[in-house]
């Protein structure tokens, strides 16, 4: 392997006629990293990802994915890239195992199909017809087909839409496991807590531009933002904003002479930071 990043994008631009979908987007994803792209619908996430996947031509800019320009995809490159697209589900009468085994034949060094089925939690459904799966189970089959080729780089476009909380938890474990094995992952999601659970870094796209790239803990100055301490006072709920939450809590403890009723200490959630950023971008954009 080389030190060059798995994904390298400079000044990416994509227009559809007069409409600009992506404008001057930069992005670097290191090998082995899990990177989450966040952004509202229509912000250019899927356009960007599909350019990187080799599906769409770009209007301008420099793009390299695993050292190859995805506008000129070749089959060796396809063998190293796993793709989980948004909402498919086109299999009806064939079983889960048959589909996964079939797709394994396309790759030079595939994973064992039964292990893949196990990893996505479909072992109990391995012999069921794909058309009889629930929405979440179909999505897991999509993921199985994305990883059966043992990709170096995996694209996941809104992978957990329609999952129940338990399935999502299991899916996250699978992603952690893939990341531990060294798979580079680029995912898009609407669930901020998902990005926080999975990604080393997140990038926020709005109106075709990258607003910020940071770790989930530091996005939008989250680590420096004031902490909110709140409690049940004699006259109802009270709260204060502070940069020194520990000192405030100690003071409160003295005042109440022990436990502080209804005490919470919170930093803004990723979701609050994110919504704030998107809102600002809309106002200034």
């Amino acid at each position, binding site marked *: *392997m080389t030190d060059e990043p798995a994904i390298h994008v400079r000044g990416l631009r994509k227009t559809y006629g007069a409409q600009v979908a992506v404008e001057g987007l930069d992005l670097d994803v290191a090998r082995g990293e899990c990177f989450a792209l966040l952004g509202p619908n229509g912000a250019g996430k899927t356009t960007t990802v599909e350019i990187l996947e080799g599906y769409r031509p770009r209007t301008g800019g420099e793009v390299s994915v695993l050292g190859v320009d995805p506008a000129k995809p070749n*089959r060796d490159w396809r063998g190293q890239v796993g*793709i989980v697209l948004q909402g*498919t589900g086109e299999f009806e*009468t064939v079983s889960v195992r*048959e589909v996964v085994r079939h797709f394994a034949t*396309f790759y*030079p060094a595939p994973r064992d199909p039964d292990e893949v089925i196990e990893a996505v939690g479909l072992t109990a459904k391995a012999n069921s017809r794909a058309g009889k799966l629930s929405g979440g189970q179909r999505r897991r089959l999509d993921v199985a087909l994305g990883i059966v*080729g043992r990709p170096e780089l995996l694209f996941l476009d809104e992978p957990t839409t329609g999952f129940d909380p338990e399935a999502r938890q299991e899916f996250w474990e699978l992603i952690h496991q893939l990341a531990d094995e060294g798979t580079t992952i680029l995912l898009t999601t609407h669930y901020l807590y998902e990005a926080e659970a999975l990604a080393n870094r997140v990038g926020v796209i709005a109106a075709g531009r990258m607003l910020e790239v940071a770790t989930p803990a530091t996005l939008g100055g989250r680590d420096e933002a004031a902490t909110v301490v709140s409690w049940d006072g004699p006259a109802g709920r009270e709260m204060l904003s502070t940069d020194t939450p520990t000192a405030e809590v100690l003071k409160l403890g003295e005042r109440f002479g022990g436990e502080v009723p209804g005490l919470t200490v919170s930093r803004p959630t990723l979701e609050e930071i994110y919504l704030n950023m998107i809102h600002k971008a809309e106002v200034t954009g």
Partner: protein
Amino acid sequence: MTAVTRPRVGRGPLYAARIGWERGRFEIREFFRQRESVVFTLLFPVILLLFFTQVVNYKIDGGISFAQYFVPAILAVGLFGAAFQTLAIQISTEREKGFLKRLEGTPMPPSAYFIGKIIMVFEVVILETIILLGVSAAMGKVKIPIDGGKWLTWLWVTLLGVAASAVFGMAFSSVARSAKAAPAVVTPVALVLQFISGVFFVFTTAPEWLQLTASMFPLRWIAQGYRSVFLPDSFAQQETVHSWEHGKIAIVLGIWTVVGILVTLRTFRWRSDRDS
């Protein structure tokens, strides 16, 4: 990190043929589990035969029963339906559902997709033929040839006929703008071709301009090739130029195959319009 050699994907026509075989097996499995389409596709020719031989009884010159004349015609219709109609509709559905996009994202050699389709069609055509001939023989109205040379003719007409009709279907799959519109675009073409290609009446009784039009499409030639298998050679006198024209059949179907492949290569789309 340690240097790893990336595995390279397989290359060359043999590899494409192997993956095409895998595709074909998968397609056949999918097809045979859809009970409605299996029953309809395989029994439709039999229904046609039973219906027409009950209702119609044209007198055909040369002492040939209508059933005997009709069997090669139905075989030709069955072949053309399985290759042209099924593929044109199926491929536009697979495009719209995103299945082709999914395949495009894998290292599968693109030719394997087309090879798989042709393997599936060939299997369907062979089964249709076995069932139709079985029923015809059981009815006792149709003589099945026992001459090896006739069956050799059957084999090459079938191979070339499937190839020409299948690539026509593949190329045509891009004409329909949506999967919903596909049957509406494809079915009339097939029906008109059936009608003008001498399937439902003796070809030479059609007006000349109709014969000429039909001669530009594969179905007419497949039907004529099959007639040369199932009708006595004396019937060749009643063909347009008083001969089975085997050479011409091979040339026309061959041209259709080559031109169809070229058109498909130039126009085939793995994604629908709204997806580029």
